[in-house]
């Protein structure tokens, strides 16, 4: 198959520029979401600068710029919410957003790596990269969900009792019991959703 004929193909063009489209779209969506949450706050337009830095990073394929842009958006979001009401819902939302920011950074970095690999290909890309992407996406979603569960559990333990409350000697036992209970739940979830499916898959 000639490379020249492929170059005129619209799908070929889209595939070759797929990285830019996906990366810019994810960054823009993140910026819009944060602006939506911060508006009409004092610094609502600040995420735009972070988004621009990220987009410049995407154009120049610079990991450090992409990460800096997203970290900047995250920092603005977090600082704007310093005075937020300390309710469980708000705290869980903050945890979810922290994971979202981290997920976007990891996703963009992987997209960059995949784009470099895609560029090296001549002719059909084949099934290998598609399979890698599918499993990578599945794995990151699974891992981030697990992170979310752990973070929420930790938050719950600390939310039930204040810092001073846990420090008191008679409550230390309670803290240890709670921690062990939470860890037990995590372990159970890990065995149920990660270890057992892996064991059955490898057994096939």
């Amino acid at each position, binding site marked *: 198959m000639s490379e020249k004929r492929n170059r005129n193909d619209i799908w070929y063009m889209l595939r070759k520029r797929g990285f830019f489209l996906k990366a810019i779209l994810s960054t823009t969506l993140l910026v819009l979401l944060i602006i939506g949450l911060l508006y009409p706050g004092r610094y609502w337009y600040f995420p735009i600068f972070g988004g621009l830095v990220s987009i410049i990073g995407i154009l120049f394929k610079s990991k450090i710029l992409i990460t800096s842009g997203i970290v900047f958006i995250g920092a603005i979001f977090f600082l704007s919410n310093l005075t937020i009401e300390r309710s469980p819902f708000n705290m869980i939302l903050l945890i979810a957003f922290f994971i979202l920011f981290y997920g976007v950074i990891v996703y963009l970095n992987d997209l960059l790596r995949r784009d470099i690999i895609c560029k090296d290909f001549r002719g059909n890309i084949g099934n290998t990269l598609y399979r890698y992407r599918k499993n990578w996406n599945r794995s990151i979603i699974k891992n981030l969900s697990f992170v979310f569960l752990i973070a929420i559990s*930790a938050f719950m333990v600390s939310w039930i009792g204040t810092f001073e409350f846990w420090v008191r000697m008679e409550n230390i036992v309670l803290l240890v019991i709670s921690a062990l209970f939470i860890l037990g739940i995590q372990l159970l979830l890990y065995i149920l959703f990660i270890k057992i499916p892996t064991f059955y898959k490898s057994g096939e």
Partner: protein
Amino acid sequence: MKTKNFGYLFAIFFITITLGMMLMDYIFFIPAFTSLAIMIVGYLDLPPDEKDISIERDQEEVHTYEGEEFTVGLTVKNHGDSKAFIEIKDELSTNVKVTEGSNHHSLYLKGGEKKRIEYKVKFLKTENYSIGPVNVRYQDPLGLFSKNWNFQKSMNAIALPPVEDLGRTKLRPKYTRGWLGNIKSAQMGVGSEFFSIREYLQGDEMRDINWKATARYLDPKTNSFEAEKSGDVIVVVDAFYESNVGVFEENMLKHSVRAATSLASDIISDRNRVGLLVIGDFVRWVYPRSGQEQLYEIMDNMMDLEGGSHWRLEHAKFIMDKIFPNRCLLLFISPLTSDKVTEAIAGLARKKYEIAVVSPSPVDLQKKYIDIEDELAEKLQRIERNNRMAELRDYGPVIDWNTDQPLEVAIEGVRRYQMRT
């Protein structure tokens, strides 16, 4: 190995937990908990052991031709129980071009899974190549741990100069030697072509007796045949720096090497002896011999050839006189870009050598790669070139070869010339 991401997360954890403790503000514990949770989950996907991933090559050594496509195959296996996200890159030399697939892959391997990777490459230059080592990189999905290692097993690839089929064009030396060959030598001897009838001599084979002539003359007559012998040809390649006109992908030296190997292959197939002399930065020479092994030795000596100007063609005269046999055909392959080369060839022809020149045209090649055409300069170049070729035509056949055309077409001119003379 922990990545920068791990460091950043650890910094966030440390700073926010400290701020939270100092300010007794709950909000700072949120990033602290989450970054700690990410670090903990990251430990679930630790890099596999180096022994768990194995990479096997289909071939460890390969012989191919310059410009021909060749398939490189790798088999990657995960011997461990856990899944692995790996990135592999088979290192290639600068003159190797990937034509299909890629030498750079991202792979997902389940425990015990095997995956095959194939890609096609083209060697742009006649050279001894080494493909490999294979660099492997593991990075967990959360980007916290990475590991780099490599498989040193490389593949040795030898890209031989391309050989063109010259078909009917048989270039032959005028002077033959005692060995059997395919050149008719205008003498009686062992051969297949009828020459004359002579008196029967004791020892003549029965199958050679001409029975019709014997019946007519009532005296035994025998058929005699034209002897078929072979000769010596020395291929002289002009590898001077100033002769190497063109770009990396297509230059005079590449065409000269192609012509030399094609001619050597054609001449050797006629049971002649072929030798080689390359003059440029170094002098490379191969004493004339026959057979396929000789062709490979010639090809081997023309690999990795670079243009140079350390040696002069006058030195070739010395090597010819002292080392190579007398009365052989000197087949020059030169773009004839300087008068010195022309004079040296004429000098050799005036001695005792039979000469033939195959001259790839640098003017046509230059025209292909120059954006602004200067008609006057092109005309002058052509006149100069024609003058040089005309001068050499007094001594032997000179072939003006437009490199866009097959060499066979150009060599056909030599055959006609030989038939006329």
